[in-house]
C-alpha cells in the first residue's frame, strides 16, 4: 500500500464534502437532501480512514475504523428517521420539499 493512494482518497474527501454540503442546501426534494447529507457524511468517514492510513502505513489505526463503523450505523438510522419524516410530510401535505406550494 503506497502513501499516494491515501493521499488520493484524503483529497477526494474535499470535493465530496463540498458537493454534499452544497447539495443539502441547493437540492429541493427531500430525498435528494437526504442523499446529499449521506454524501456529506461519507466524505467525513473517508477523511478519517484515509488520514489514519496515511499516518500509519502498515497496520491501520483501529480507533478511526471503529469510529467509522459506529458512524455508518448511526448515519443510516438518522437517514431512516429523515426518510420517515419526509414520507409523512408528503402523505399529509403533498409537499416534497421545503417551501413548496402544496
Amino acid at each position, binding site marked *: *500500500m503506497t502513501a499516494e493512494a491515501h493521499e488520493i482518497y484524503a483529497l477526494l474527501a474535499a470535493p465530496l464534502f463540498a458537493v454534499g454540503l452544497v447539495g443539502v442546501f441547493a437540492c429541493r426534494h427531500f430525498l435528494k437532501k437526504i442523499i446529499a447529507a449521506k454524501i456529506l457524511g461519507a466524505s467525513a468517514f473517508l477523511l478519517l480512514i484515509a488520514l489514519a492510513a496515511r499516518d500509519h502505513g502498515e497496520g491501520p489505526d483501529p480507533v478511526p475504523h471503529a469510529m467509522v463503523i459506529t458512524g455508518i450505523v448511526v448515519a443510516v438510522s438518522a437517514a431512516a428517521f429523515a426518510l420517515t419524516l419526509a414520507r409523512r410530510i*408528503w*402523505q*399529509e*401535505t*403533498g409537499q416534497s420539499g421545503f417551501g413548496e406550494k*402544496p
Partner: protein
Amino acid sequence: MQVFYLLLGAFLLANLAAALLRVIRGPGTADRLMTAQLFGTTGVAVLLLLAEAMEAAALRDTALVFVLLAVLIVAAFTRTEGTEERRPAGKGS
C-alpha cells in the same frame, strides 16, 4: 501478478464507468436498476481481485456479503411496484 490484478481491477472500474451511461440514458427504471446490478457483479469481481492483489483475505468476506445481498435492491423495487396503487392521503387536509 499483483500488478496484473490491479490492472484488471482498473479495467473493470472503467467498464463500470462506461455502464453509467445506461443509468443516465434510461429510459426506464428497470434499465437503470440493471446497471446497479452490474455494479454488484463487477464490484464482487473487483473485490476478489483486490483481495488477491493486496493479500487481504478479509475482502473475500466483503465480497460474500455483497453477493448475498445483491438481490435485495431489485427485489425491493419489484415488490414496491407490484403492490396496488395507493394515493397519498388527504392532500392539503
